């Protein structure tokens, strides 16, 4: 998956979890929580959706990798590409 495809996949998940929010103005470098109303249950939703949609298991020690859009992409892109190679 390209960087843009990974970004779009994350945006799709966020749009489902935070349906009242405008996703068009996300600043990739800032933390997601600064920009979107997300709490710990929402965060667990992101982890669940990655599991359901991409069969990705994010271990608890890596949760901090999901803090901003940029860090999400950096963390998830290689994993997603490994998944594709494996399949």
């Amino acid at each position, binding site marked *: 998956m390209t960087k843009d495809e990974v970004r779009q996949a994350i945006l799709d998940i966020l749009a489902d*979890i*935070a*349906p009242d929010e405008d996703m068009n103005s996300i600043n990739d470098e800032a933390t997601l929580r600064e920009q979107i*109303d997300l709490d710990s*249950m929402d965060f667990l*939703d992101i982890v*669940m959706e990655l*599991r*359901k949609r991409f069969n990705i298991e994010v271990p608890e020690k890596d949760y901090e990798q999901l803090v901003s859009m940029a860090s999400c992409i950096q963390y998830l892109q290689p994993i997603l590409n490994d998944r594709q190679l494996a399949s």
Partner: protein
Amino acid sequence: MSSEQRIVITGVGLTAPNGNDLNEFRKNLLAGKSGVQKFETRYMGEVLAGVCDFDALKYQKKKELRRGTRAGSIAIYCCREAAIDAGINMESVDRSRVGVYLGVTEHGNVETENEVYNISKYDYDTKFWSHHHNPRTVANNPAGEVTLNMKITGPHYTIGAACAAGNMGVIQGLQMLRLGEVDLALAGGVSESIHTFGIFASFNSEGALASHEDPTKASRPFDKNRNGIVCSEGGGVYTLERLSDAQKRSAKIHGEIVGYATNSDAFDFILPEPERQAECMRLALERAGLKPSDINILNAHATATQLGDIQECKALRKVFGGEKAVWINNTKSFIGHTMGAAGTLELSGNLPAFEDRLVHPTINLDELDPECSLENIVTGEPRRLDRVDYIMNNSFGMFGINSVLIVKRFQN
């Protein structure tokens, strides 16, 4: 009784299958308009149900709807509407002195069925079971969602009381006001039961699920051709206050709760027992200081099951037999059985009778079952009475839980 101990209804918030506020609901009850329709349910396909179409986004964000439950959403809508109807600005009340007391027939079945269905898509791997399941299924969920939405910091809980639950919520609110535990109670009942296939399947297995080619004719209490319950969703919540507080702020008063009672049959899991039901009605009358003949409108519980209706009619004959001026109606004939909401919702539909003196009819009563023979069932058209001073509402549930409320036209 002092005005600190007299409890009045100052606000009504409701959603019924045929109306999303008291005016619309009342108008449709007087017009004979049913709210029962065809409804798709998981595994069973098409069934009949009473479905509410209130605007859930009126008081909630999309995210709250996604995270919470249907019962929570119904509860929030009804509580908000009840506060608005009472003319109460929640910003200006001490919200640590507000209590939320909501009756539920059951809670958690909908959410558990959804999760089991969800993991069935993942070969029953429980790592796909939602972290939202616990907060969605704790028994206090509907009342808890209300406190988050309305920023109420006083007590909240639900009262599990089968189909007597709506009245039980009101009784709880009344008692807490009398004890001085709270200054304002949002009390009543809610139901999301139509979103579980299990309730339809279980009534079907009992031989107690209504069917009819015309959905609007399916709920037929007291009728010879009744064939069971129409399951419905809904909510009915009252703003309750001490009379002294209501008068201080010149609140509009829908009625005064002058009698209540609850007891247990101690008889059977599902079959009601007329003697205990009669005792419950008599206890409510006694507490109100009334004779049976003082009641003008009796809103019956009858759900249109074969045996349940007969049992309630036996109880009604024990208490009201021979009374010529006690008029009986039944709201489930319009909206089906709204379970935890039934007591409050059905009583609500009758409260405007204090003003317009009209007894809304029972519909679908084409041929009275001789075993349900009662004097003065109002059928077909509304009946205007000379005066309406007292309304009694019956709500009974499984395990023989009985609840009765008596509301009086407010007089200072």
